[in-house]
């Protein structure tokens, strides 16, 4: 072992956090996912005490179906937040894209898959347009997408025409949110996820050891694997005891995992983080900052369209309210609640899923308790405010401890 390797190994050992440090990291938001999971447990306990249907298999399955749209839109929002920008148009884009799909499928008799592809392309094109305007003219993304919010809502009304609502009956579209798989398929699904995760961990670990990077954290890898396996098995068991694993959940998970891979493991994702952290440094490192920005807004538009398609599928219809109401704010609030920073450069795609779970649980629980939407909105607003405050405090603490 060379001196360099010895030094690295030593550093690796030093890097193992103490208990106190772990607590500090949870408080400061580095381990915000742990914080959110604790929050979810608290929410679950509160609602379960009030109403014992909350943790029933049927309600948990409903919860998963309810969060699909918000979760998918949030995946795109996470990318925008990582840049330190905001996209206020995602709700309207999801509604418009769904309307495009509905009109093509119902009025023009297009093949379902072509109609869905057209909707997704529509979302991507809108995102690309907004991203280009934002980066070319250096207008705040807030303003560009606010204009988009209004314009695309108008476009939604225009596309839907006089009736203002279209019922979708093509089973290929409605199936997206209404197909449930048999128990066997559910377990195969679980086995594939667990196997793939285990393989990825093992390969990464062996490569690090082979390269002499001396990562001695085998135990933490095993803990992570066991945790994930337990969560997946529990989730599939619960879903199977009701109607089975829904296709919608698989779609949501596939996008979360895929986009998390892009964010954390690819050059493009690295550049997104770099631009969000320090755009000027990224530019001087030779990154095409504007291309990254346009790509990110295109992703946001695309994910919004996919979310819109799922929403239409679940409702069997597109109407003037599609993509409206509080969908936009919840899709942005979710990742922020779950720990993606509004200030850019910090976060993960998992927060789209976790945040949607938090928001979905609160909304679902309050529905079970038959609370009015007045109360629901106020509670959700309070949770969002709390999350943003935690984010801001974490940021201040990072700054005072010399970490900008």
């Amino acid at each position: 072992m060379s001196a360099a390797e010895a030094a690295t190994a030593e550093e690796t050992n030093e890097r193992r956090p103490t208990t106190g440090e772990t607590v500090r990291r949870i408080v400061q938001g580095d381990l915000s996912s742990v914080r959110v999971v604790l929050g979810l447990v608290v929410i679950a306990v509160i609602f379960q005490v009030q109403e014992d249907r909350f943790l029933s298999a049927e309600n948990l399955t409903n919860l998963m179906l309810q969060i699909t749209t918000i979760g998918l839109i949030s995946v795109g929002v996470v990318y925008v937040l990582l840049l330190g920008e905001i996209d206020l148009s995602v709700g309207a884009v999801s509604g418009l894209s769904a309307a495009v799909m509905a009109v093509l499928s119902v009025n023009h008799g297009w093949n379902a898959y072509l109609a869905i592809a057209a909707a997704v392309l529509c979302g991507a094109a809108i995102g690309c347009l907004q991203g280009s305007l934002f980066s070319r003219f250096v207008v705040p993304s807030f303003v560009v997408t606010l204009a988009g919010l209004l314009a695309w809502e108008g476009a939604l009304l225009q596309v839907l025409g006089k009736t203002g609502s279209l019922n979708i009956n093509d089973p290929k579209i409605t199936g997206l949110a209404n197909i449930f798989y048999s128990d066997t398929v559910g377990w195969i699904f679980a086995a594939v996820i667990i196997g793939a995760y285990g393989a990825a961990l093992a390969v990464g670990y062996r490569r690090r050891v082979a390269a002499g990077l001396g990562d001695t954290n085998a135990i933490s890898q095993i803990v992570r694997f066991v945790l994930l396996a337990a969560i997946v098995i529990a989730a599939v068991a619960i879903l199977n005891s009701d109607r089975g694993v829904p296709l919608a959940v698989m779609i949501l998970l596939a996008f979360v995992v895929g986009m998390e891979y892009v964010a954390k493991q690819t050059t493009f994702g690295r550049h997104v983080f770099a631009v969000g952290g320090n755009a000027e440094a990224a530019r001087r490192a030779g990154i095409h900052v504007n291309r990254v920005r346009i790509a990110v807004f295109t992703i946001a538009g695309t994910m919004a369209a996919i979310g819109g398609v799922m929403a239409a599928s679940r409702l069997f219809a597109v109407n003037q309210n599609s993509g409206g109401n509080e969908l936009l704010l919840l899709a942005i609030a979710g990742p922020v609640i779950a720990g993606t920073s509004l200030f850019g450069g910090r976060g993960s795609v998992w927060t789209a899923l976790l945040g949607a779970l938090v928001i979905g649980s609160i909304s679902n629980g309050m529905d079970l308790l038959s609370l009015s939407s007045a109360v629901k909105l106020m509670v959700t607003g309070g949770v969002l405010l709390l999350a943003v405050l935690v984010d801001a405090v974490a940021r201040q603490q990072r700054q005072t401890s010399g970490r900008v």
Partner: protein
Amino acid sequence: MADGAPLLELEGVSKRFGPVQALDRVDFAVHAREVIGLVGDNGAGKSTLVKAIAGIHSPDEGTIRFEGEEVRIKGPQDATELGIATVYQDLALCDNLDVVANLFLGREQVSAGPGQVSRQLDEVKMEHETADLLSNLAVTIPSLRSEVGTLSGGQRQQVAVARSLLGDPKVVLLDEPTAALGVPQTKQVLELIRRLRERDLGVVVISHNLADVFAVADRVFVLRLGRAAGEFKAEETTEEHVVGAITGLGDNGERNQHGEEGEKS
């Protein structure tokens, strides 16, 4: 001064920003294995000169030659491809990324695989190379996976300098590398600059601090109001002479400049 043809040579370079003549027909040369201290008052054009070389601002007039060939540097990418690396005072690093990610920013290593977008970052390889490079430069960072924002000013500056070496440059430009550093950290960075020279690089150090300049530089190049105002061999001059050239007070600067020019022709 190093012998032979200069690595990088600027001739008659001018740059205007509206009514401001930031650079006025400046001639400037960097040789391999030498450290040049680029000094001057605020607004003298030091940063503009460095930015012209680094491709941030293209000069309005003048020619730039790299290894004897005339080149046009239109963007940071052009400069990097030629082998000119720049380390900026404060805009160099992304605080939210770790040391490895910062070092390889813009030139990430990816594993083999299909497609450009879907290829996985080769974190293991990058971390390995980072460890090698930093230990070669005798830079000590507690953990390569800690966010750069958590490092001290000296460590950050050393990471920024180390990063500039990854593209195997021939010329390294350092903008105020010791500004805002404490005494021991300044010493580390100056030590690092000496090691760059030992690697046969041409190094340009912009600094306000003449003591730091005299500690590492072979030559001192003075800019005043956008014009070359003197060029000194560090071992043959004194701080007073250089200060005279920077401020334009006292005739020391002028005389030395003439002396230098006489020596050249």
